[in-house]
């Protein structure tokens, strides 16, 4: 585009839109890259185009030295080119985890959608939704010929998808240039292959496979030819045997060489972390205050462990204290009200000892992220204070018994074999991995009370005697616990009883000092800047810093510089983050780390230059993003939850494409992931699991934006699931007692899809809001049908009380929710009275049917009953049935009679009853059995002409005037 002091912004737009660009740089770099590519070793052939394309398009000649300073990303490439080692190249591809494609392309997108995953390889560039890489503020760009009227690449607004560059022209108009990828298929496929290789989706990269195949063919050809030559030789001459001898010699030499290498490697195998671990208190790298606190706490045990008196250690501590207290007093004046954390810690350390001369807190709990030297600190301080360190790893010894045993062993016994008998100090590492039961054991040990000792008084000799005899003695040895996460639920109890020391970050300056010392001793050249960068990269993790150094050393590098550190993805911790932070990172573009770039460019170029560099590096930035998200997702491991979170949140992101293609693609990806996980979990095909982290990566590429996303926790899956379960239960409950004729044709599916929605309309006929006795015959018929329908489908109404105290009749089982959409208005309901009436009628009908069934079941009895006149009841009841007892018979009779009485009212009791006396006499004369019945159930019951209708309400409300003349 323009060349100003060597800066070139290389756009991937059509060169026609920028004539100057053609003039200045676009032609040149191509030829130059071609030169470079040809200069690169043939082993690097796949990497060569990549390197070429990533070259800044500038008029500069390509001197590697100057280029290093400006474009750190390319150093590695050029470095590779200078020292071509086939083995190392492969390793780089894996370890660096950078897309080969990335260096050349502006963007790395996952394939647009899984369906055209393979197809899209060739046409990927068109589909790429570029993320915004805003490089505004390029002052020089103002003079550029900005507009080529006919071209559509100059946009008034930011393009909906894809990379763009915003430009302000001299008149102050802001326009946007869309960035398009170059369309060169061959390079793409190559780099794509590279990327696949680096992702490790194929266990063996395709190129290697091809090489193997080629090699095998080659071997076959060679063998063939050898055979032929041998055939020839055998016929011609046998003097060529010497040649074979030579070959074998050579082979032996080769083997020896290899053996030597192996030997060398084994000697190196000792970890530097162990080799250079601190030996003394003064060598510790961790925070001084923390170190001191732990030591002081450990010293508090001196009285009970060593029997030393307080003043002895007071003298030591006092010196430290006096200095500190002076400094602290100043601070205290400033903030008198609040105790700082430091002060609280100090107070704990100066607190009184308890009755057994132990400090108040029996356990020290060191917590902090890995690699800060917690374990080292614990060991060194314990040794420093004169203890014998017994270490146990809580995450290894998981069983409670073992835990108990080891704690007891460590705290109550003493090594007798050693030269000097030191008391033990128990160091429990990774206690956050221990189960709760084990921690309870530890707590029980801490809180163990020595009851007998109290009774006997505090005789030293006596107590020691008892200690030997009793298994359960009071804890008398310090315990140091180490954890990474202080807030693990299992540690809750322990947290309250422990002296908690949180590790601050190691100071980078100290760490760098140590690192440089180590590298000096190992003969590595490392400048401070590089080591600083290493510290920053590893978050001041001592262990991973040293390991990284050793790794580099082991790979034969005697020199470490900044760029190497930056481009390395080793030394990164396999730390998993919380789900929310993962989601956030997926939906948010990473901040451009200008500061770091600035550090790298030690020459101190201007900001604009930086951005130019950033632009050309943009492609690799994208690749890094992809790699980062992949790594993040795979380290999280909870794909299910992760996917759900993405699914629920991706629509609330700011989508910049009006045609919603991104959403479509996102949904395609979701579908693909669903299929994938189904295949994985149904068929136990776990090799497919490695494709799962690509969904977050795809989403990141599609939807990541600059603003901070608002993530909500995914609930809808759970809600939908529980709702489905609920609905199914309702339907099953309904189906359980549905009439067989209906049951035979309906299942859950048909019920919910076809039947219910209509049925609910059917069972809501228009009923006049009057007493059902006033219904016309047609209405009565309608009601009967309604009740029949509801009974057939096992539906009824149930009275329900709302929380507000209102009474409602609801459908039972309540299938209304099954076929109702939330957004639609509720369907028409019957009135309360109507429902009440229906419910009652249903009950009545049920009873009626049950009765009918009962009668249908024993019809012969009924018939005899009807046939017999009531007068013959007496002989019948007296009829000899020897096996049946008398009272049983009578009871049966009563029930039978009563059942029959309700039916044939007229022929038996139908006449109007005149007087009680007559009635009694009539019945007594009628039959003795009846007489026996009547005192029990009342003679008028069920058969009398008069009946009583109760009026609800208070008696006052229904009071009625009655005249006395009516009564007389």
């Amino acid at each position, binding site marked *: 585009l323009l060349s100003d002091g060597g800066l070139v912004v290389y756009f991937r737009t059509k060169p026609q839109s920028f004539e100057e660009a053609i003039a200045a740089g676009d032609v040149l770099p191509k030829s130059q890259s071609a030169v470079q590519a040809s200069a690169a070793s043939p082993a690097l052939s796949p990497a060569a185009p990549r390197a070429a394309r990533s070259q800044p398009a500038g008029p500069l000649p390509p001197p590697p030295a100057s280029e290093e300073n400006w474009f750190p990303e390319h150093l590695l490439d050029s470095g590779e080119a200078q020292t071509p080692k086939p083995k190392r190249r492969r390793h780089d591809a894996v370890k660096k985890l950078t897309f080969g494609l990335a260096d050349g392309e502006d963007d790395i997108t996952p394939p647009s959608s899984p369906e055209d995953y393979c197809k899209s390889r060739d046409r990927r560039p068109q589909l790429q939704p570029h993320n915004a890489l805003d490089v505004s503020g390029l002052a020089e760009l103002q003079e550029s010929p900005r507009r080529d009227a006919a071209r559509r690449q100059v946009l008034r607004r930011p393009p909906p998808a894809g990379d763009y560059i915003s430009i302000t022209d001299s008149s102050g108009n802001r326009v946007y240039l869309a960035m398009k990828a170059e369309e060169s298929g061959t390079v793409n496929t190559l780099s794509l292959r590279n990327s696949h290789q680096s992702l490790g989706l194929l266990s063996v990269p395709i190129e290697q496979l091809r090489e193997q195949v080629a090699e095998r063919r080659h071997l076959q050809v060679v063998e063939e030819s050898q055979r032929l030559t041998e055939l020839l030789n055998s016929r011609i001459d046998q003097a060529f045997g010497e040649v074979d001898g030579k070959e074998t010699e050579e082979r032996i030499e080769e083997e020896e060489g290899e053996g030597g290498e192996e030997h060398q490697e084994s000697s190196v195998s000792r970890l530097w972390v162990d080799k250079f671990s601190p030996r003394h208190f003064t060598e510790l790298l961790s925070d001084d205050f923390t170190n001191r606190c732990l030591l002081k706490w450990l010293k508090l045990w001196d009285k009970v462990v060593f029997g030393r008196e307080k003043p002895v250690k007071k003298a030591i501590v006092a010196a430290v204290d006096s200095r500190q207290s002076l400094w602290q007093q100043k601070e205290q004046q400033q903030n008198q009200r609040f105790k700082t954390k430091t002060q609280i810690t100090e107070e704990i350390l100066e607190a009184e000892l308890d009755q057994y001369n132990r400090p108040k807190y029996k356990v020290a709990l060191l917590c902090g992220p890995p690699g800060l030297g917690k374990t080292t600190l614990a060991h060194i301080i314990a040794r420093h204070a004169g203890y014998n360190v017994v270490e146990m790893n809580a995450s290894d010894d998981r069983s409670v018994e073992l835990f108990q045993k080891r704690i007891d062993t460590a705290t109550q016994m003493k090594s007798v074999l050693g030269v000097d008998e030191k008391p033990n100090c128990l160091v429990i590492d990774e206690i956050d991995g221990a189960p709760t039961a084990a921690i309870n054991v530890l707590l029980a040990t801490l809180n163990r009370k020595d009851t007998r000792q109290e009774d006997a008084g505090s005789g030293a000799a006596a107590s020691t005697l008892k200690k030997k005899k009793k298994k359960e003695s009071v804890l008398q040895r310090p315990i140091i616990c180490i954890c990474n996460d202080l807030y693990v639920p299992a540690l809750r109890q322990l947290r309250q009883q422990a002296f908690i020391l949180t590790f601050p970050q190691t100071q980078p300056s100290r760490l760098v000092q140590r690192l440089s010392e180590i590298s000096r001793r190992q003969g590595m050249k490392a400048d401070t800047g590089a080591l600083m960068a290493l510290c920053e990269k590893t978050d001041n993790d001592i262990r991973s810093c040293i390991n990284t150094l050793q790794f580099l050393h082991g790979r034969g590098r005697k020199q470490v510089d900044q760029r190497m550190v930056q481009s390395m993805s080793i030394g990164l911790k396999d730390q998993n983050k919380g789900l929310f932070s993962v989601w956030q990172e997926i939906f948010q573009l990473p901040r451009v780390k200008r500061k770091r770039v600035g550090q790298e460019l030690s020459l101190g170029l201007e900001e604009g230059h930086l951005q130019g560099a950033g632009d050309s590096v943009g492609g690799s930035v994208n690749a890094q993003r992809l790699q980062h998200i992949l790594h993040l997702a795979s380290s999280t491991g909870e794909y299910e939850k992760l996917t759900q979170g993405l699914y629920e949140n991706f629509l609330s992101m700011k989508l910049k494409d009006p045609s919603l293609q991104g959403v479509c693609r996102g949904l395609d990806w979701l579908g693909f992931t669903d299929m994938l996980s189904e295949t994985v979990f149904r068929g136990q095909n776990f090799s497919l699991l490695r494709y799962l982290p690509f969904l977050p990566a795809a989403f990141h590429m599609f939807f990541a934006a600059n603003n901070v996303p608002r993530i909500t926790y995914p609930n809808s899956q759970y809600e939908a699931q529980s709702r489905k379960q609920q609905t199914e239960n309702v339907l099953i409950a309904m189906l359980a007692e549905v009439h067989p004729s209906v049951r035979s044709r309906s299942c859950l599916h048909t019920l919910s899809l076809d039947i219910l929605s209509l049925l609910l309309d059917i069972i809501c006929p228009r009923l006049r809001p009057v007493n059902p006795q006033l219904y016309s015959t047609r209405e009565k018929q309608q009601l009967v049908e309604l009740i029949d329908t509801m009974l057939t489908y096992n539906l009824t109404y149930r009275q329900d009380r709302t929380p507000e105290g209102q009474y409602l009749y609801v459908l039972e089982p309540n299938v209304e929710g099954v076929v109702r959409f939330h957004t639609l208005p509720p369907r028409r309901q019957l009135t309360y009275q109507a429902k009440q009436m229906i419910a009652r009628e249903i009950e009545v009908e*049920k*009873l009626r049917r*049950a*009765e009918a069934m*009962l009668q249908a079941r024993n019809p012969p009895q009924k018939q005899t009953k009807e046939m017999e006149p009531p007068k013959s009841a007496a002989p019948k009841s007296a009829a000899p049935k020897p096996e049946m007892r008398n009272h049983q018979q009578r009871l049966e009779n009563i*029930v039978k009679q*009563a*059942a029959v*009485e*309700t039916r044939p009212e007229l022929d038996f009791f139908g006449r*109007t*009853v*005149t*007087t*009680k006396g007559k*009635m009694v006499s009539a019945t007594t004369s009628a039959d003795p059995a009846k007489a026996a019945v009547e005192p029990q*159930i*009342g*003679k*008028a*019951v*069920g058969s*009398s*002409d*008069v*009946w*009583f*209708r*109760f*009026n609800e309400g208070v*008696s006052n409300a*229904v009071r009625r005037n009655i005249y*006395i003349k009516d009564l*007389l």
Partner: protein
Amino acid sequence: VSDCDRPVLVLCDSPGSPAEWMLMELQGEVVSRQNIGLAGGQMGDLHYTKEGIPVLLIGHHILYGKVVKLEKPFAVLVKHSGLPEGTEDDMETGEEKPTSYQVSALIKRKIIFKTRPKPIITNVPKKV
């Protein structure tokens, strides 16, 4: 029982104890099943439990009530007009035989059935 100003002669036939009636107050209606009318029919049975609680059986209902003493007792009077029937004019003029009332009964207590009646179920199906 005096709702007018004039003194009223009240006679008592059987000296000492006129018959005592009881009011029965039902919360509800007594209905004839066949619409024959209640007249002359038997309403139901009134019993007393051992504790003296009245129990009324009407139809298939059983009602538990209680006996309450009326605040204002009633007397049931039967009017005996001294005049020959049909001549109403003489009612005011001729007073040779004054109108008299005969106490046929006193009502001092009443039985109130105000609780909801309980059904008497005689026909219990074995299986509903």
